[in-house]
């Protein structure tokens, strides 16, 4: 649905994007993660045909963003990282205005407006002036605006920034609803826990370079080399390390809060074998657990070794 090929953007002497490539198939939620200034917004703006790339190409549903921006705009709903609301208009008028800008026939606009206000839970605010809405409500209204022409693809730039936890959960519920409707969604964010739960795919970008991209679990596996164990022993740390170190499946060992953290290559059976080896050597193991390598961990690893 979305294809980005070797996208490069250079502002003066600063390279904002350096040969970024990724693909998002239909119906996926793609989490676009990276620290501030990594190039997330630039990528999304190029995808929304609001900016020309210096090199490389990008396609939305087969339409080239530089050659066919009109076709891209038809298929794409874009929600920037700012609200962009007009004062002096009510919520319903605001949506009606954008529906008209998308050339929706007048007869259908009222239904579109009502449906969208319903979807984002603003039906009771339809006659309230847009500039008097709270931040969370404005954000929801902006999401509704991106949907007025029923696009197949949604680009959401930091949809959860500045929202309180409740508003964030509500936003997530709306996005899940949209996923059920079969939309392809790209969300950029630096708030990771949100994305782990919501996204089916993830791309990690840092300093204009794509560090990793693919399904969430693949990326985690790709970035955290192997799996990790936390082993607690009763007073026999040195002995335990001496037993573990020669094992071929162990990559590295480290001491963390009195426990041993071991990175290993293998599956659950390998972990069981490690435990057996330890107990067979007479070491009293009081704790033995597998550590989940989360997206956060993957992200930290992907972005730590930057030059």
């Amino acid at each position, binding site marked *: 649905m979305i294809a980005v090929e070797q996208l490069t953007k250079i502002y003066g002497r600063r390279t904002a994007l350096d040969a970024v490539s990724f693909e998002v198939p239909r119906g996926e939620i793609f989490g676009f993660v990276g620290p501030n200034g990594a190039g997330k917004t630039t990528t999304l703006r190029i995808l929304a045909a*609001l900016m020309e790339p210096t090199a490389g190409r990008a396609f939305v549903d087969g339409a080239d963003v530089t050659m066919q921006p009109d076709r891209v705009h038809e298929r794409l709903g874009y929600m920037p990282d700012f609200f*962009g609301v007009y004062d*002096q208009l009510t919520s319903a008028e605001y949506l009606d205005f954008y529906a008209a*800008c*998308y050339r929706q026939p007048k007869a259908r606009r009222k239904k579109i407006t009502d449906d969208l206000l319903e979807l984002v839970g603003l039906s009771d605010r339809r006659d309230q002036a847009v500039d008097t809405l709270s931040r969370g409500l404005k954000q929801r209204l902006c999401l509704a*605006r991106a949907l007025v022409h029923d696009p197949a693809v949604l680009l959401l730039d930091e949809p959860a920034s500045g929202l309180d936890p409740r508003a964030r959960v509500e936003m997530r519920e709306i996005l899940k609803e949209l996923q059920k409707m079969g939309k392809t969604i790209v969300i950029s964010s630096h708030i990771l826990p949100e994305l782990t739960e919501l996204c089916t795919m993830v791309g990690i970008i840092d300093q204009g370079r794509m560090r990793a991209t693919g399904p969430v679990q693949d990326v985690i596996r790709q970035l955290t080399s192997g799996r990790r164990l936390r082993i607690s022993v009763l007073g026999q740390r040195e002995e335990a390390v001496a037993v573990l170190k020669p094992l071929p499946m162990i990559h590295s060992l480290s001491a963390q809060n009195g426990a041993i953290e071991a990175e290993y290559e293998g599956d659950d059976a390998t972990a069981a074998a490690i435990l057996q080896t330890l107990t067979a050597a007479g070491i009293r193991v009081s704790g033995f657990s597998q550590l989940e390598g989360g997206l956060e961990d993957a992200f930290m690893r992907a972005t730590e070794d930057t030059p």
Partner: protein
Amino acid sequence: MNPIAVALWNPIVAKEYRSRMRTWRSPVAMTVYILLLGGLGWAIFSSMTFAARNSFNGGQAANYGQGLFLYLVLFQMVLLAFITPALTAGAISSERERQTIDLLFVTKLPSFSILWGKLLASMSFVLLLLLLSVPIFSLVFLFGGIELDQLAAAFLVTAVSALTLGIIGIACSTAFRRTLPATVSAYGAAFILLAGSLLFGLLFLTDIDPNATAAPAPPAVTYLSPLIPLITIGTNGPINNYGVRNGNNNVYPSGGGGMACSTTPAGVQSCYPIGPNGASGKVIAGPSSNLVQARGTTIPSGLFSGWQYWQATVTMQLVLSLIALIVGAVLLSPIRHLPWRRRAAAKATT
């Protein structure tokens, strides 16, 4: 809807009307406009009646009418030159500052429609102000001395000049990212258009060809200023002594060449050249001659020879507007679809 109707009436116009008319600023602006124009009309009328009371001849009603009309059209033009840039200079740049312009770019509206919608919305407010001034202008007809065609021509010149200022304002708003420089440059352009072109006629006068067969006219650039046709319409005659070297009726310079002109009460201007050392030599033109005669408000010679002053002004301003509109539209698009760039891109990918 057909494409032309879509292009002319786009959602931006409706939205702008809504948000403009919901503020207190619009009614206040309209009230102040009417008060200023009406106040000036009243002041002129009082001063004319005062002068008439103290003179032997008394006043002719037609003179009141003409005087009132002339001052009102000039003052209205100056007022609009102050109002129009303020209305349009922020049109695009304020959308940029509010960061709403991207949201319009991602819709199906072509960027020209955005520009056009903004222009239409501001210009209809100017048109509203012009309509509001009609009752004040109708007072002129109580006194007479002004025909309906003069009023129509004066309103046309005023409206076209406001349109030109509006389009230049929008082009400035597109060219500069921020409202402040856009506003400053739009006012600069308004000043150049109104006063600068007038000043040009004072600095770069038309030199007189002693063998000319037509009366001299000010340089063509000066017709850009709406003030010139407004004066010629208001006085129903050419502007004496303006834009022509030694064009003074009463001065016959002994030193060099020139042209002496005189205007008869019927508005017929006749000129004859003065040769070197003040010798008038051959009389090429005179009231009895059929060669050099500038009738009423017709431009006697030059680029627009034979045109009415207002026709020249309206034509030049419309050309200027068209250029500004094209520049604005090209500058606005985030991705410029210039044919040669598109070809280059296609070549690069194959």
